[in-house]
């Protein structure tokens, strides 16, 4: 079966924003437009419902999950970890970015594997790098790093280099040895 994507009507960011706010007015915390992509900050408790709505809605029709990742902001207390979802609607030709902020004491958000199967490994990678727990994920364990690693390497407090290496003298690399 051959499927084709023809662009139907051109969507603009105001329509998207107003449609989401219609249904989830209290959960959209802030919004901005970065380089033509509407970026919304949504609350962590309703992230699953919002994404499910976005996928099933006829007008918005976000059929494709492009990317899922995490960011660590150690300075913002109570909002240290951000989980960023990039959605793409092919028939309506727009991209959307959703951000969910969670605190460091309890970094967890509901997993969207049931909505998009492709989120499976992307969530495992985010867990592996940042330690964010995705509730309801079928197999949340480390994917890229070694299984017995006991820290989450992409967090800002950890260095890039291996702390136990003894063959490279940091002074020659412009880094002070700690």
């Amino acid at each position, binding site marked *: 079966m051959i499927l084709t994507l023809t662009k139907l009507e051109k969507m603009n960011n105001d329509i998207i924003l107003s449609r989401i706010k219609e249904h989830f007015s209290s959960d959209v915390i802030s919004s901005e437009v970065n380089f033509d992509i509407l970026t919304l900050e949504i609350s962590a408790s309703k992230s699953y419902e919002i994404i499910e709505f976005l996928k099933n809605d006829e007008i918005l029709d976000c059929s494709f999950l492009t990317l899922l990742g995490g960011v660590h902001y150690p300075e913002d207390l109570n909002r240290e970890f951000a989980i960023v979802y990039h959605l793409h609607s092919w028939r309506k030709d727009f991209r959307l970015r959703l951000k969910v902020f969670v605190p460091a004491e309890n970094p967890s958000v509901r997993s969207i594997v049931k909505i998009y199967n492709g989120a499976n490994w992307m969530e495992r990678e985010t867990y592996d790098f940042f330690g964010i727990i995705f509730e309801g994920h079928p197999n949340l364990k480390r994917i*890229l790093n070694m299984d017995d690693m006991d820290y989450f390497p992409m967090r800002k407090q950890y*260095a890039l280099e291996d702390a136990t290496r003894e063959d490279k003298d940091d002074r020659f690399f412009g880094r002070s040895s700690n």
Partner: protein
Amino acid sequence: MGKIEDLEVINGEGYQLTTLDKAIGLARANSVWPLPFATSCCGIEFMATMGSMYDMSRFGMERLSFSPRQADLLIVAGTISKKLGPVLKQVYEQMSEPKWVLSVGACASSGGIFDTYSVLQGIDRIIPVDVYVPGCPPRPEQIIDGVMNIHKLVKNESSRRRYSDEYRHLMDTYDIDIDKTGENE
């Protein structure tokens, strides 16, 4: 069988006089069976070296052996991460004597540009290496140069190398038990 070239021989009409070591060294050097342990970008350059433009089969390396039991030369091309380290060591231990290791590329020799928490900074942390080929990735000509250096080593090495004390001591520093080498772990 004709005259053996490139050897210190005493030639006469219908006979040659040489040492067995030299004859064995020549035979070994010109028919090395490599095991390409190709992980990343250097693996593609290794495939190009095996291709028709920079032909490696002129050096007797036509037959790649993917089973360590039948291989002489372990060519490690590409980044070795800490997760892959035990696998590499197991493959090395499964090879039977005599064996040589060629480390192709900057990542295999010393970690390369990836001075990170997950990359092993050189395979000589876990296995002994004979020849290092630097480059990122090295050109096929450089890989061939590395192979020719391996041939030089193979030709001139004593066939009793594995019983020497120096070799035993080297393997001890890597925690490789050479009495069990070649058997199942």
